[in-house]
C-alpha cells in the first residue's frame, strides 16, 4: 500500500502529515462511532482490501494498562469493515508469553471480534518469508517475517500509550516487534535486543511501515513500562496515517520531547514527520490533551524540562 511504498522519504519530500486526537472517556464509550468520526479525516483506501490490525498484546494483563484494549481492537475492526474492507483480522505475536490463547482468553477478545479462528492470527506461528531489511541501522540485515503481514493490503499498528524502560516510549513503531515471529526467534525475540532495540525498531519499521496507526491511550501505562508500570488514564485515541507523526504527537501528549527519543528522531529523517510544523493536528489540540507521564528512571531526561534546567542537571 501507499504507506509502505513511501516508507523511505526525507521530510522535505513528504506531504504534511495529519494526526487526529480524539476523546474517549472509557472503553464502554461508543468507540466505533469515535473511530469512524476520526477516520473520516483521512483517505483510507481499504474498499475490497484486506486489513491487518496489529495490537499490542504483551501478556496476561491484570491492570488493563499493558495490552491494547480488546474493545479498541474490536471497534477498529468494525470501523474498517464499515469502510468497505473485504477482510479485517487482528494479528499479534506476543513477545514474552508463548501461550497466545491464554492472553486472548484472559482479555475475552472473542467477545469483541467474534471467532478467534476466523478473525485472529498468531504471528508467532504463521508462514514466514525472508525479507531483506530496507535500512541498516542494526546489523540484522534480513529477518523472517509473517506472510500475513507481508501479504496484507493495509497494516494498522495499534499500540498502547506506554513508557518503555529500554526505548523510552512504546508506540506504533515499537509495536512492530510483535510481527517478528517467535517460531524463528524465540520468546522473547532476543535477537532484537542484541541488535539494539532502537536500531531494530528502525529497520523493521522501514521495511514494514504501517499504513495507519491507532493508539489506545484511554488507559495507558506510565513509569516502569512496558510491564511493571502503573495505569495512566488519558481518555484519548490518537490516530493518523503517518506512524512517526502519531508517535511524536503521543510523546508530546505524554510530556516527552520526541526528538530526544533516539529511534523517533532517526525515524523523523526517513520514515515520517516528527516536527510539529509538519503535522496538521486534528480533533483535540495537544495542549488540551497533554497529560505528563511518569518516566522510567533512566529516561527522566526526555521530559519537557527547560534546556536551562536540564543543563543544570547535567543532562544536556
Amino acid at each position, binding site marked *: 500500500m501507499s504507506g509502505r511504498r513511501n516508507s523511505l522519504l526525507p521530510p522535505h519530500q513528504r506531504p504534511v502529515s495529519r494526526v487526529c486526537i480524539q476523546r474517549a472517556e472509557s472503553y464502554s464509550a461508543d468507540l466505533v462511532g469515535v473511530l469512524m468520526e476520526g477516520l473520516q479525516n483521512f483517505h483510507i483506501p481499504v474498499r475490497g482490501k484486506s486489513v491487518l490490525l496489529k495490537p499490542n498484546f504483551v501478556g496476561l494483563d491484570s491492570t488493563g494498562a499493558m495490552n491494547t484494549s480488546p474493545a479498541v481492537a474490536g471497534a477498529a475492526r468494525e470501523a474498517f469493515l464499515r469502510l468497505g474492507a473485504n477482510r479485517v483480522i487482528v*494479528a499479534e505475536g506476543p513477545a514474552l508469553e508463548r*501461550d497466545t*490463547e491464554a492472553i486472548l482468553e484472559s482479555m475475552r477478545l472473542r467477545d469483541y471480534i467474534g471467532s478467534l479462528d476466523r478473525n485472529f492470527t498468531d504471528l508467532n506461528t*504463521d*508462514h514466514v518469508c525472508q525479507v531483506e531489511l530496507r535500512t541498516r541501522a542494526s546489523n540484522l540485515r534480513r529477518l*523472517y517475517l509473517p506472510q500475513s503481514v*507481508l501479504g496484507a493490503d493495509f497494516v494498522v499498528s495499534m499500540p498502547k500509550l506506554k513508557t518503555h524502560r529500554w526505548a523510552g516510549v512504546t508506540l506504533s513503531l515499537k509495536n512492530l516487534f510483535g510481527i517478528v515471529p517467535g*517460531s524463528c526467534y*524465540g520468546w522473547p525475540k532476543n535477537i532484537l*535486543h542484541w541488535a539494539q532495540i532502537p536500531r531494530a525498531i528502525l529497520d523493521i519499521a522501514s521495511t514494514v511501515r504501517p499504513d495507519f496507526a491507532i493508539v489506545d491511550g484511554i488507559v495507558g501505562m506510565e513509569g516502569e513500562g512496558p510491564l511493571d508500570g502503573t495505569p495512566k488514564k488519558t481518555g484519548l485515541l490518537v490516530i493518523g496515517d503517518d506512524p512517526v507523526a502519531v508517535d511524536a504527537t503521543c510523546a508530546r501528549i505524554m510530556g516527552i520531547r520526541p526528538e530526544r527519543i533516539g529511534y523517533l528522531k532517526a525515524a523523523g529523517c526517513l520514515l515520517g514527520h516528527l516536527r510539529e510544523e509538519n503535522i496538521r493536528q486534528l480533533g483535540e489540540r495537544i495542549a488540551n490533551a497533554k497529560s505528563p507521564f511518569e518516566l522510567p528512571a533512566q529516561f527522566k531526561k526526555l521530559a519537557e524540562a527547560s534546556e536551562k534546567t536540564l543543563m543544570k542537571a547535567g543532562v544536556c
Partner: protein
Amino acid sequence: MNSEGHGQMVAQPQSDGSKLTGFETGIHRVMLEPKADTAGCSLEIVGTRFLLKSQNPDGGWGFQPVLSSATEPTAWAIMGLEAFIGRAECRQACEKGMAWLEDCQLKDGSWPAHLGQREGCWVTSVACLALASKLDEGIAKRAEVLSKGLRWLLNDWPGEGNLWWRLLRMLEGSNLGRPRGWSWTPGTSGWIEPTAQALLAVQAAPPELYPRGTKKRIQMAQAMLLNQALASGGWNSGSSESYGYAGRQQPGPTSWALMALRSQEQGQEIAAGLEWLQQIHTSLNGFFSFSLACLCLNFWEVPYDISRLQNTFFTRISPGAVMEMGWTLLAISPPEESPLGRWRGLKS
C-alpha cells in the same frame, strides 16, 4: 507478498495441495472434527487421529494443520504418536515424520525452525529429543544424525560467552562466574526454555554419543536453571529479577525447567516449582500451557487434573494446535511406555 515484493518464500502450505497465498494463509484454520465425531472417544483415539490427519504429505507437521511443516511441531507430533506406537498407523506416521526431520537437518548439524531456512536454532534440541526417543530403530543412520545435532548443541554458546561481552562485564565489575545455558538463536542470551530443552535432549541421548565436554555443560545448565528459580516457586522465561522487579512465574518455563531437572535430587527449588505448577495448572486458560503443565506433572508422576484435560480437549471445537496434541498424548501415556521413559531413564 506486498507490492514491494522482496520476500523469499520459505514455507508453502500443503495440506490439500492448493496454495493458500498472502493474507489468507494467516487466517485459514482447520477444525479438528465436529464434536459429534469425538463423542465417546478416548483422548488417545482423538489425539492420535488428529495428528494422523494433520500430517503433511511431506511427512512433517505444521503448527496448525493447514500450515507447512516446521521442525518443532514435527518433533512433538512424532513423540506424541510414539507414545502409542503399538498402532501400525502411528508407527508409519512416525517413520515418515522422522525421515522429514532427518532430511531437514542442516550441514552443520543444526535444525532450522522452518523448512528452507539456512540457520539453525533452539529447535535443534527438540529434533534431537525426538531422535533420541526413537534411537532403537534404524540406529546407525539415526545415531549419526543425532550425534551431529549434539555436536552443534555443545558448540552453541549464548552471547554472554563471547570475549567482548565478558570483557565489558569485567570492566563493569560484574560476576563472570554465572553459569550459562542455551539461547533461542545463536549468539543471543541464555533463557530458561532453550536451556531446559537442550538439557532434556542431551540427557536423553546415549552417553556414548556425547561430544567432549558434555557432562560439564550439563552441570552448568542445571546450575543455571537452579540459579534462576524464583523464590516463590517456579520459573520466569529469563532472570529471576530484572530492574529490581521479581520475575513472574510462567507455566511454560516452569514446566520445561522441571522436566530438565528430573534427574536431580528434589531440592527446594524443584519442590517449590512442582507445588506451584500443581496448584495453578487447573486454572490455566490456554491449551498450550495446560497440556504442557500436564505433561510435566505426568513426567514427575505428580497427580494432575486429567478430567479437565479430557474436557478441555473435547470441548474445544478447533484445538488446531499440533504441539499441544503431542504433549497431551505424552501426558496421558504411562511414562515407562512412552518417550518419557527414555528421557527419565538416562540420567547423566
